[in-house]
């Protein structure tokens, strides 16, 4: 016995026709759109999904009809509620063969059908459909798809010739398989309609067998893609192969949002995916430059990151959990990692976990790409600054490798444009390279290796020594090179839901060579080895423990001859005092070799005494061999869910860091320095009025103790006196409020507004009064918006309004005959401020999608209004007149990226 059913769907807003055929117990569905019913307007944006039969019930074939070989067809009107249950079934078209009970059998069966409800957009709705039952009596050698006659069973016929159709659905441009997509094949209309359905497998492949020869229509309509409607010819006893590259409705990077699935643990944390970050205007596509747009981060001209009133060196940068010396190439032009290698950036402006240490400011943690490519792919990115290449290769199901490299060519472009006046410039040149490997022997283990290398070089050569100051050094050349490398191996072990472990081992080398002529130089080389283990164990639903150790060994070999006053000690006038006077008598020389150890252990509990409250107390112990200091750093944070969309949070903790390398050097500074300390306090609230909108307000207060600052003090040593140069006599305090609103991608829009109100102060050695910190910026407003347009266009913009930079005015001058120049007499430190900074940046992206690759063109325009923004003050030769120095004018950067 075979029953064939056919259903059609009538909806209020749109009309669809659905066909369901029951063939030998195999259900197949075929759908095709039909024009909207007269007077019924389809919704523009809401997609209508017809109900899907999930519990089929076959009517009981009336025995008399079966015995007599009578076939029939009954069409019902079936009302399906929003839960997919049949509310009612009535006969629209009775069986022609009356008196056998076909109608009744059909109604009984129909009332037992269960559907996945129809949907309008994401909302389930009630619908009415017409549903056709065909009663076909059992016959010998029943053909597979032939519709029998109505009046009586057809005579036995030889099986019709059949063939197969196989195919594969891949994403156009990326060649990624489209998995789990329903593919429907059908032909015929009305009573002759027949069709089948299947789903694509993990390779995007599908197969239909036993198809009648001839022309078939194929339909696939995966979510987020343009639908495929094609016709294919099926030949007798052969397999027709087809491959369909389906174009996504949008290739916008924001489609792939990285949201942390875990419950938020940090009081202050901002995360952004690399794909989002690279589209922020004004960053020239650099993923790490986005940090300057986060709440609590001051605006700086270079690569410095000033977090909540802390000095740049107080914020630590990790790549894959490992310390790195720098994250930007020369001058902050580019970060040392390309976008292809980065998965996400986590930024902690304060009150960070005990997992992080050796910093009193903030933490930037760059998470490497979770490498699991399904195909060989990559990109080539060409801009006026540099070219980068990225390639990722799946070796097998468990192993994958990615390799990348980048080289700048500013030197190549600008070199020929420079005048030939006896000076040879080797302009800033940088390159970097990375290799990332991933191996997953089983679900519990993941091994990763990462190697990266960064190299920067800058040099100026003079045919003859230059210098125009009687007391300055003769300069024959100025050179700066720095390179560093890290090799990181990590093992992630997650045997079950309760326990996880992450072990990381890193080795690397940093080298710096800098010279101004022969007399001023820094030659620095260090080897690092770092071991870091972090483990988590969930004791119960209410308590999870985290702990770990972090050991860093540094072998240093350096020699340097530098001015007696190092940069940083006199930052106040470095921008506005013209070229510094490098007087020969001021130079000091130092050299050292040796090992230094930094060891830390940490433990924290994540305790939920009640479902809505999360308490995270933690303790960190640090030891620093260079300055011979221990430190205990207790910290605690708490988060309370007041309502499903409301939460409040707060934290307090101790944070320490070691003095800078040169500060604790016996020759350059003071070897008896204590640790710099900070207390962080913060309290805030979060509100998520909608899933894609988050509003946050955080107040913070930070006190800084034992800051290393310049001092005039001397110490008695062996009966004599020794200049200390620096001591722990500094202090600071920072208070502020951060307000942010973030709109995750929804309806094409992505962006955030971040406003920070703060006051950062410092107190110098021997002083009783606080002064404003060099980087104090009272108001910082950043507005970023990106809008996704049709046809893979995307526009984005950034607006920034920031308080002007502080500067120390000169209140007079003295003429120095020795130097033949005027020396400025400084006024009150940081007592004046230039006018506020405001700037609009703009970016537009367009992507063209081809079968096997994509081309993305972008234009990133910094300072699109070409506004002259004041950055500082410069003085004339005798400090009697001032002039405002301005930042960059309009800077357009055009780039192309080919992805495959």
């Amino acid at each position, binding site marked *: 016995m075979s029953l064939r059913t056919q259903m059609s769907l009538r909806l209020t807003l749109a009309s669809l026709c659905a066909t369901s055929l029951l063939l030998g117990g195999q259900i197949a569905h075929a759908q095709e759109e039909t024009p909207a019913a007269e007077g019924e307007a389809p919704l523009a944006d809401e997609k209508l999904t017809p109900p899907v039969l999930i519990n089929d019930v076959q009517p009981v074939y009336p025995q008399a009809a079966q015995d007599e070989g009578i076939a029939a067809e009954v069409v019902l009107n079936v009302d399906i509620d929003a839960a997919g249950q049949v509310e009612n079934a009535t006969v629209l078209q009775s069986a022609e063969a009356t008196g056998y009970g076909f109608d009744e059998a059909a109604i009984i069966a129909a009332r037992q059908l269960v559907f996945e409800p129809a949907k309008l957009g994401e909302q389930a709705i009630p619908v009415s459909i017409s549903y056709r039952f065909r009663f076909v009596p059992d016959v010998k050698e029943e053909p597979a798809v032939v519709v029998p006659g109505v009046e009586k069973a057809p005579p036995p016929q030889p099986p019709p010739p059949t063939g197969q159709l196989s195919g594969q659905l891949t994403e156009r441009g990326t060649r990624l398989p489209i998995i789990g997509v329903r593919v429907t094949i059908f032909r015929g209309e009305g009573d002759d309609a027949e069709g089948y359905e299947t789903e694509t497998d993990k390779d995007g492949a599908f197969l239909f067998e036993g198809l009648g020869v001839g022309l078939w229509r194929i339909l696939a309509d995966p979510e987020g893609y343009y639908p495929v409607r094609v016709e294919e010819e099926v030949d007798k006893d052969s397999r027709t192969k087809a491959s369909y590259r389906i174009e996504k409705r949008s290739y916008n990077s924001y489609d792939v949002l990285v949201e942390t699935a875990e419950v938020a643990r940090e009081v202050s944390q901002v995360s952004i995916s690399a794909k989002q970050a690279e589209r922020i205007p004004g960053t020239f596509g650099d993923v790490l430059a986005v940090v300057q747009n986060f709440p609590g981060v001051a605006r700086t001209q270079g690569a410095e990151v000033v977090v909540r009133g802390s000095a740049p*060196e107080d914020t630590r940068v990790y790549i894959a959990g490992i310390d790195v010396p720098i994250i930007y190439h020369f001058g902050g032009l580019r970060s040392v990692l390309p976008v292809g290698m980065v998965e996400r950036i986590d930024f902690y402006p304060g009150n960070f976990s005990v997992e992080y240490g050796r910093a009193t400011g903030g933490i930037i943690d760059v998470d490497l790409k979770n490498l699991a490519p399904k195909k060989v792919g990559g990109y080539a990115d060409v801009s006026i600054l540099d070219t980068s290449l990225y390639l990722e290769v799946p070796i097998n199901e468990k192993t994958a490798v990615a390799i990348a490299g980048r080289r700048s060519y500013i030197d190549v472009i600008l070199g020929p444009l420079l005048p030939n006046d006896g000076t040879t410039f080797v302009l800033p040149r940088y390159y970097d390279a990375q290799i990332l490997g991933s191996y997953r022997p089983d679900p519990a283990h993941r091994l990763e290796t990462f190697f990266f290398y960064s190299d920067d070089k800058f040099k100026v050569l003079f045919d003859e*020594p230059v210098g125009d100051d009687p007391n300055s050094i003769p300069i024959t050349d*100025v050179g700066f090179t720095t390179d560093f490398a890290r090799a990181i191996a990590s093992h992630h072990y997650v045997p079950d839901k309760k326990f996880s472990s992450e072990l990381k081992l890193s080795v690397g080398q940093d080298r710096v060579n800098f010279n101004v002529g022969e007399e001023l130089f820094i030659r620095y080389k260090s080897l690092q080895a770092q071991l870091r283990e972090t483990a988590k164990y969930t004791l119960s639903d209410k308590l999870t423990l985290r702990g770990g150790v972090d050991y860093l060994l540094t072998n240093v070999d350096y020699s340097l001859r530098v001015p007696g006053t190092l940069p940083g000690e006199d930052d106040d006038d470095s921008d506005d005092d013209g070229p510094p006077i490098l007087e020969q008598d001021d130079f*000091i020389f130092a050299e050292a070799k040796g090992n230094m150890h*930094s060891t830390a252990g940490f433990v924290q509990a994540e305790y939920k005494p009640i479902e809505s409250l999360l308490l995270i107390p933690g303790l960190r112990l640090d030891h620093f061999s260079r300055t011979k200091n221990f430190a205990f750093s207790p910290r605690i944070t708490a988060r309370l869910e007041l309502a499903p969309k409301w939460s409040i949070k707060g934290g307090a903790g101790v944070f320490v860091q070691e003095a*800078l390398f040169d500060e604790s050097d016996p020759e350059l500074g003071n070897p008896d320095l204590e640790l710099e300390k900070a207390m962080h306090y913060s309290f805030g609230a979060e509100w998520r009025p909608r899933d894609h909108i988050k509003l946050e307000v955080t107040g913070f207060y930070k006190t800084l103790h034992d800051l290393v600052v310049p001092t005039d003090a001397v110490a008695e040593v062996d009966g004599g006196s020794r200049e200390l140069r620096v001591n722990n006599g500094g202090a600071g305090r920072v208070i502020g409020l951060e307000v942010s609103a973030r709109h995750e991608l929804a309806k094409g829009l992505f962006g955030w507004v971040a406003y920070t109100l703060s006051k950062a102060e410092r107190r110098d050695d021997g002083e009783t009064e606080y002064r404003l910190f060099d980087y104090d910026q009272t108001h910082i407003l950043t507005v970023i918006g990106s809008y996704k347009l049709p046809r893979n266009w995307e526009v984005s913009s950034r607006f920034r309004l920031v308080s002007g930079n502080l500067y120390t005015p000169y209140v007079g001058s003295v003429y*120095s005959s020795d130097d033949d120049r005027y020396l400025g007499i400084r006024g009150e430190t940081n007592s004046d401020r230039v006018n506020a900074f405001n700037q609009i940046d703009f970016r537009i992206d367009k992507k063209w999608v081809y079968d096997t690759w994509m081309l993305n063109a972008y234009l990133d325009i910094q300072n699109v209004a070409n506004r002259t923004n004041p950055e500082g003050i410069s003085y*004339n030769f005798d400090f009697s007149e001032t002039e405002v120095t301005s930042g960059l004018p309009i800077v357009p950067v055009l780039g192309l990226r080919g992805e495959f």
Partner: protein
Amino acid sequence: MPSHQFVSGVLCLALVGASAACTIRDDSTRANQIEGLRVLAIGSTPADVVLGDTAEISALVYDEDERPVSYQWSWCLSRGGADDGFACNIDEADLQTAWQSLDTGVDMPGYDLGTGETASFEMVFEPEQAFALCQILTEGEPDSQIALFTCLSGLGLSIQLEVTAGSDTIVAIRDIPVLLAGDERNQNPVVGTEFTRTLRDNDELGPDDPFVAERIYDVVADVGIEQSETFLPPEKEGLPPPEPRGEALFLSWFVTTGSTHRKGSQRTSYFDEGTIENLIENSWDMPYELEDTEARLFLVLRDERDGTSWAEYRFDVVEAP
């Protein structure tokens, strides 16, 4: 890890170094287009002093309006920095008291060196005595700023000149090196009286030929390479032992009309094994509009050991035909 902060500092230093080598301030030409009241140099004969020397100190002062100029000379052992206005940071009475306690039998000169156009200073102490003075002055004040500038950096002889013309006042300072008897002495370099002017792409001008407005002249100062004395530089920690070499020379060009502009700098320089032309050659642009019929040029020649001398030249200037 120390390196990341260290590297940050190095990066900063690199930028400073690069700017030192490459940056020329936009207003650098204004410094040598002299206007108003200016002190252009302070000289000392001899160029450095040892015990028993008397330094004759003079100044090259220019006043555009040729007003009466008053002078106030003083000296000091140690000066404060930019935050302190470079003022003397040893009280004179304290110094005298400390000096007397050394019982040298000679009088320490008072800070005030008079109000003449020149001043003289008799050297009565040696560097070792300066250290003894330091210890006395800083006794009981181990963390005082005096200690910083005396005990550690050593005392020096710092001259201050305050000149006033009308309501304008300029304070100028210079250090005179203090040597031990037997140390290698330095001679002030000398600028000759000859001064060669050549209209660009034309013949050389005669001594009495005037400048012509709007024209550019190549000029050559009268400084011979012999002004660069050969000396043994002091040994410097971290550098190879020095060998005898010629002094570096620096020539400052100050003009009352037009501007000199070689390489955009107001100074030219010579370094050992370089060419003297880098020091003595310049170009002088005459202005389009003449405000004076006379062009004055002041050349100040310095060597790297603080030797200083100067010369002045006057030329007529006429309108372009």
